[in-house]
């Protein structure tokens, strides 16, 4: 891996240096499919970049990490360029100082790959209206993570208010295996749903989101209850002829029970951030199902 440091630099110099490094390695053109902009704190940088690089193995990308440092220092842009084995694409870690912290978009915009999608990801705190954020406005897809902040459920309610097509949240991606299993269970005719309950550790933002989705789709009230965890532990749906449930206590193997049928075990492991991110990058069109679920969550949210 080649790492190259540039201090007190500009976007133009970074571009030129990237091109130069590529030529030096003898691979001037590669098939990067998107630009992923990661907006995070210095302390989240390592983990986020790791997840992003792993996801980039599935979706070769130029990864731009934007870190805002001390705003009261003199204006300065430092960059760290990485090209090589760890990723099929390129990584640029940008550190912004002084007034420049308010104008990150001026650095990011010239570094975006031409004519390919831009994805913005906030691994920690996110703006209230991601689409109105200067960097968010450059992106077609804006990924937040409600679970990373203190009150994740409130965060989702706020994000729902500022929703724009292209927004998604990793707490929604965490639900895909659950939703997939439930949808598969409903592929066989089941009776009308009377009521249901989703159980998870207290404050887990995915739980009310799953409940909101089920309510939205099945037209019956689905509540959220606390459990010992870890994460989501069960979904119980009361049907006309009994209870359909998926329960998981060890974060790996779940049991599916339905009326009149034997219980069956299904692998349902929690996924890493890299896997969640890779799923997000697979579809870059707006997720209307998420929109409906998160807006329903916000409607019933009493903060």
């Amino acid at each position, binding site marked *: 891996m080649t790492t190259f440091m540039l201090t007190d630099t500009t976007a133009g110099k970074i571009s030129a240096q990237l091109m130069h490094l590529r030529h030096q390695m003898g691979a001037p053109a590669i*098939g990067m499919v998107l630009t992923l902009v990661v907006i995070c704190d210095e302390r989240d940088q390592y983990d986020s970049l790791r997840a992003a690089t792993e996801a980039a193995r599935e979706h070769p990308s130029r990864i731009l990490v934007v870190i805002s440092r001390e705003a009261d220092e003199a204006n300065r842009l430092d960059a760290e360029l990485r090209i090589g084995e760890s990723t099929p694409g390129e990584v640029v870690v940008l550190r912004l100082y002084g007034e420049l912290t308010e104008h990150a978009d001026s650095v990011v915009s010239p570094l975006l790959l031409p004519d390919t999608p831009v994805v913005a990801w906030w691994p920690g705190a996110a703006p209230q209206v991601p689409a109105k954020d200067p960097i968010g406005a450059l992106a077609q897809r804006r990924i937040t993570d409600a679970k990373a902040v203190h009150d994740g459920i409130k965060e989702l309610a706020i994000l729902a208010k500022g929703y724009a097509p292209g927004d998604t949240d990793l707490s929604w991606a965490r639900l895909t295996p659950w*939703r997939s299993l439930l949808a598969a*269970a*409903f592929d*066989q005719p089941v009776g009308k749903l009377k009521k249901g309950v989703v159980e998870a550790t207290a404050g887990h933002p995915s739980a009310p989101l799953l409940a909101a989705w089920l309510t939205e789709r099945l037209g019956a009230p689905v509540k959220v209850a606390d459990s010992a965890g870890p994460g989501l532990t069960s979904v119980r749906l009361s049907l006309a002829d009994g209870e359909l449930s998926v329960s998981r206590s060890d974060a790996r193997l779940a049991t599916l029970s339905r009326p009149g*049928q034997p219980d069956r075990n299904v*692998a349902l492991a929690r996924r890493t951030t890299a896997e969640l991110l890779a799923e997000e990058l697979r579809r870059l069109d707006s997720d209307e199902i998420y929109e409906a679920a998160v807006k329903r969550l916000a409607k019933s949210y009493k903060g």
Partner: protein
Amino acid sequence: MTDPAAPAEEAATVAAAVAGTATTIEVAAANPLRDPRDKRLPRVAGPCVMVLFGVTGDLAKRKLLPAIYDLGNRGLLPPGFSLVGFARRDWKDQDFARLTHDAVKANARTPFREEVWKQLAEGIHFVPGEFSDDGAFDALAMALKEIDQTRGTGGNYAFYLSVPPKFFPAVVKQLKRTGLADAPEGSWRRVVIEKPFGHDLKSAHELNEITNEAFPESSIFRIDHYLGKETVQNIMALRFANNLYEPIWNRSYVDHVQITMAEDIGLAGRAGYYDGIGAARDVIQNHLLQLLALVGMEDPTSFEASSLRREKEKVLKAVRLPADLKNNTARGKYAAGWQGGEKVVGYLEEEGIPADSTTETYAAIKLEIANRRWAGVPFYLRTGKRLGRRVTEVAVVFQRAPHLPFSKDDTEILGQNALVIRVQPDEGITVRFGSKVPGTAMEVRDVSMDFAYGESFMESSPEAYERLLLDVMIGDPPLFPHQREVELSWKILDPIEEFWATQGQPEDYPAGSWGPPSADEMMARDGRVWRRL
């Protein structure tokens, strides 16, 4: 189920009631949790059992069992999915589970995860017996009925015949006798068969009669694993999702098409099967003609099985053989030589091959498609064993520019434009075109523009068998050739085989080379050359 059911139907009704009914497209469409806009949710198969005949075979260990695990790992197997092995071994369930475990560990594409294995292992069963043994099949029927009760699989069974075709009649007869081939209301029974689908038109027809006795055509899934490959499906995306290629995809711009499947290996233990079959029946009849159909067909009205098959059949029907078979086909067999730094024996010295064998290990043929789009554009198909390296590709070679406003010297080394679909390995697409060599002189030379799958998409795209097994369980047939396609392909190949049968020994070519001289001469007569691969 309040109506009293007749005793004969009772068992079936019980099974169906246990699992509800089978997943059908209609039920899935009515599922309130599914929405076409919800693209995160994958297609998951409904509850079912896969019964595998020939579990100890190479294909099962290398491809099928790992593919089943990979499907589970991607969350695509239904809860309760069960796998039943049937073979002539004195085994218990756990012996088959161990075989599966080892095969998965050795050959699965996705990482091994304990919880996925646990889910799969719970559903693994084994039934010992011979194909001629009525008792063994009665035991199989009993076992399946029990699995329906304990695992809720609802009487949905897929029978995978991973056995040589000579055993098909016995297995199919047994499935019919035990009633396993007949699906009770609300469930399904499917049979999966592998190539070879016969060795000529007549035998293909007979084989089909046998299978048809027990299973209707709509329940027969013929696996041509090439059609499960991403690159092959991408031929349709390339042609029909883009506006860039279709306008030039015809006789006005295309000079000729070369379809190649080259292998670097020799017989690899398949001597018993291969001798008497040869390269053309083994590869051209199925894989290469399917590729030809996909490259040559008109756009289907949709990607439903019936529309897609109709277009493929139309183009196969339009295929014409050259009048002079001697000068427009070539066949060879590899002689001893050096292949990739290894000394290898010739075909006739391979173990199990008679010294007077006339089987070819290399075949090249020239075909034309008699329709408005392709009239006069030759399609050259070639395949061989012990060639320079392993590569499968489709190359569409375009005509030269009608006029070159350069001096003759400037374009001396300029070739023809080409679009190459690299099927395997290094899946991708290459476009070759002329470009100015940097410098003060105007010199034009060929350059390539490359698109590699591994570069732009998933590192581990699903294996062909994963996709095909999932399609069998879901009941989605577009990627499986219809019997009519199989028969049309034999109609193309049979006259060539008959002609070759009168020609004695095939020509020798040294192992590690690119085929016999007659193949190059055949191209030279048309003023063309094979692409150097």
